[in-house]
C-alpha cells in the first residue's frame, strides 16, 4: 500500500478525557478499499479512535486527514467528512419517530439535497440489499435487533459513503442475529468498501480483514494480516488477549 493511496491518514494522535490519556501517539493510515479490524480489551481506546475519525470525539493533538481533508474545528469540513463517512453503532441509534424508509432517506434529502422520490428509490434499493425491503414502512421499535442493525447499515450506505466505520456492531445482538448482520457486512466488504470495524468477532476478522489491529491502553500494540496475527502474535499482551477470547 503506497502512501498516496491512503484514504485516512492519522499521525501522532493524542486524546485525553480530563486526566485520562485515552489515545497515545496513534499513527495509522488506511488504504482505499482496505478492511481493518480493530480489537482489544474494553477501555483500550478502539471506539474512541474510530469516533475521532468522524469527529464524534475531538482529539487534542496530532492530525487526522480523511480523503485529503484535514479535520479541524471548521464546521463545514466536519459536515463534509461526516457525509462521506458512514457509521454503524453498537446500539443502532435509529430514529424512533421515523419509519425505516424515512430513517434511510432523511440524510440524502436534507444533506445531499436529493428529491424525496429519488432518495426513497435509493433507500429501497439499499433496504433490498440488506434484505428487509418489506419492513420499509415499519417503525424501528417494531423490528428485531438484527433487523434494526441492518437498517442502520442501509441508512449509512444511503449517503454513498467512501468509508464505513463500525463500532461493535454485533455486541448488542442475540447470537442468531449476529450472523445476519455479519453476512451483510461481508457482502459490503466484498463490494469494495473501505471499512474500519471494531469487533470481537474473530471469525469475521479472519475472513474479511486485510489487517488486524490490536490496541491496549490507548496504544496500537500490534498490527498484522489475519494469518500472521492469529498464528504468530508478536507481543505477550496480544497472546493473552487471543487466548482469552478464542479458548472457550
Amino acid at each position, binding site marked *: 500500500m503506497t502512501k498516496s493511496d491512503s484514504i485516512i491518514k492519522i499521525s501522532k494522535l493524542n486524546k485525553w478525557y480530563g486526566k485520562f490519556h485515552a489515545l497515545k501517539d496513534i499513527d495509522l493510515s488506511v488504504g482505499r478499499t482496505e478492511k481493518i479490524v480493530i480489537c482489544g480489551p474494553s477501555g483500550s481506546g478502539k471506539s474512541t479512535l474510530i469516533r475521532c475519525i468522524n469527529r464524534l470525539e475531538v482529539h487534542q493533538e496530532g492530525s487526522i486527514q480523511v480523503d485529503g481533508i484535514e479535520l479541524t474545528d471548521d464546521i463545514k469540513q466536519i*459536515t463534509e467528512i461526516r457525509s462521506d463517512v458512514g457509521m454503524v453503532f453498537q446500539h443502532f441509534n435509529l430514529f424512533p419517530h421515523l419509519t425505516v424508509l424515512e430513517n434511510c432517506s432523511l440524510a440524502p434529502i436534507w444533506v445531499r439535497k436529493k428529491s424525496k422520490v429519488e432518495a426513497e428509490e435509493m433507500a429501497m434499493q439499499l433496504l433490498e440489499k440488506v434484505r428487509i425491503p418489506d419492513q420499509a414502512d415499519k417503525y424501528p421499535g417494531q423490528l428485531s435487533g438484527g433487523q434494526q442493525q441492518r437498517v442502520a447499515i442501509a441508512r449509512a450506505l444511503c449517503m454513498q459513503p467512501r468509508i464505513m466505520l463500525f463500532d461493535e456492531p454485533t455486541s448488542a445482538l442475540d447470537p442468531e442475529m449476529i450472523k445476519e448482520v455479519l453476512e451483510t457486512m461481508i457482502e459490503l466488504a466484498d463490494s469494495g468498501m473501505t471499512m474500519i470495524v471494531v469487533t470481537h468477532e474473530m471469525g469475521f476478522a479472519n475472513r474479511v480483514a486485510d489487517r488486524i489491529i490490536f490496541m491496549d491502553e490507548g496504544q496500537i500494540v500490534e498490527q498484522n494480516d489475519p494469518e500472521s496475527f492469529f498464528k504468530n502474535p508478536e507481543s505477550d499482551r496480544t497472546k493473552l488477549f487471543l487466548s482469552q477470547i478464542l479458548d472457550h
Partner: protein
Amino acid sequence: MSKFPITLHRNPKFRSAIIQAVLVLVVVYSFYSLYQTTIFNLEERGIKTSTSFFDQVAPFKVGFSPFLNFELGETTYIEVFYIGVLNTILVAILGIIAATFLGFFIGILRSSNNWLAQKFALTYVEIFRNMPLLLQIMFWNFAIFLAFLPPPKQSLEFGAFYLNGRGLQTPVPIIENNFLFKVWLSVVILSVVASFIFRSWAKKRRNQTGKSLPVLSISLSFVIIVGISAFYILGQPLTVDMPVLGKFNFKGGGQLPLPLFSLWFALTIYTSAFIAENVRAGIASVSKGQIEAARSIGLTRPQMVKLIIIPQALRVIIPPTISQYLNLTKNSSLAMAVGYEEVVAVWANISLNQTGQALIIIAMTIIFFEICSLFTSFILNIYNRRIQIAER
C-alpha cells in the same frame, strides 16, 4: 369447566360489581343530601333559588370590559357573568402564549452548554417555581409596578404605548367603513390562503426535484405587500385611535389596567418556570445516541434540532405542559388579590354577595372552569395524539 361452581361471594366479577354499585349509591346520595341541605338553608334565610336574578340590573360597576359594553344601571347580572368569563379567557390566553414562549426560551437556556445561561435559567426556575403564586402576584403589583411606575404625566413611552401606574395605554383600531374593512379583511385572508397553497406546491416540488424555496419569507412578504397595498387602495378603512396625554390622564386609545398587567406578568413568570422544566426534561429525554447518529449522517446542527431533537422532545414536553395551561387558567382566579375583574371576582364574589344565589353562581363558575379545562385538554390532546402516534 371446573367441577365445583365458584360460590357467588368468591367470584371476583360479582364482587367488583357489588362494590361499584354501592359506591355509586353512596356518591349519588351524598350529592342529593348536599343539594337538599343547601336548598333548605337558603330557604331558611329567605333566599329562593332561581335564575330570575339573571335579568336584574347589577348595582355595581365593572371597570374593565373590553369586549362587552358595561353601563352602570343597565348591565344585568348575566352580562356581568359574561364579562367575567371573557376577562378570565383574555388573561388566560395572553398568559398561555407568553408563558409558552418564555418557558421554551428558559428551558432551552437550561439545556445549553453555556455555563452562564445554564445557571441563569436554573436560578430563574428555582426562584419562581418555589414561591407561592399569590405572593408573586402581590409582589409584582404592589411592590414593583405600583411602587415604581410613574403617574400618567411621566408615563414611560414605548412608541405609541404608554406605561404608567394605572396601566398600559394602547392605540385602538377603529373601523371607519365597515363594508370596505370587510373587503380588506377578505383580501388579507385570501392572500394567506394563497400562501398556504404555495407552501404545499413548494413541498411537492421539493419532494419531486429536491429543490427548496425560502417559503416562509416569500409568503410573508407576499401577505404583507398585498395587505398594505389593498389597505391604501380601499382608502384606509381602518384608523387608529392614539392615546393622547390630557391634563390629568390619557384621552383616547385603550387601557390595559395595571391589575391585568400584573396578573398576566405574574402568571407568565410563574408558569414559564414549570414549562421550562418540562422543556428541559424533553430535551434531556433524547438520548446521546440519537444525537451521535444525527451527526454521523452529516446533519447540520439546526437540521438535527428540527428533525431529530424537537420531534422526540415534544412527545415528552406536551402532556405535562397541558396541565400547566390548565393551572394557569385556574390560577387566574387569584386576581381577586389585585382587583382584576375576572369571573371569580365579579361573579362568584361580588354578584354572589349581592344576590345570595350561592347554588347557581358557584355551580356556573365551576362549570365554566370545567368547560374551559376540558376544551383546552381536548384541543391539545388532538395535537398530542398527532405527534405521539409517530412512534408505532
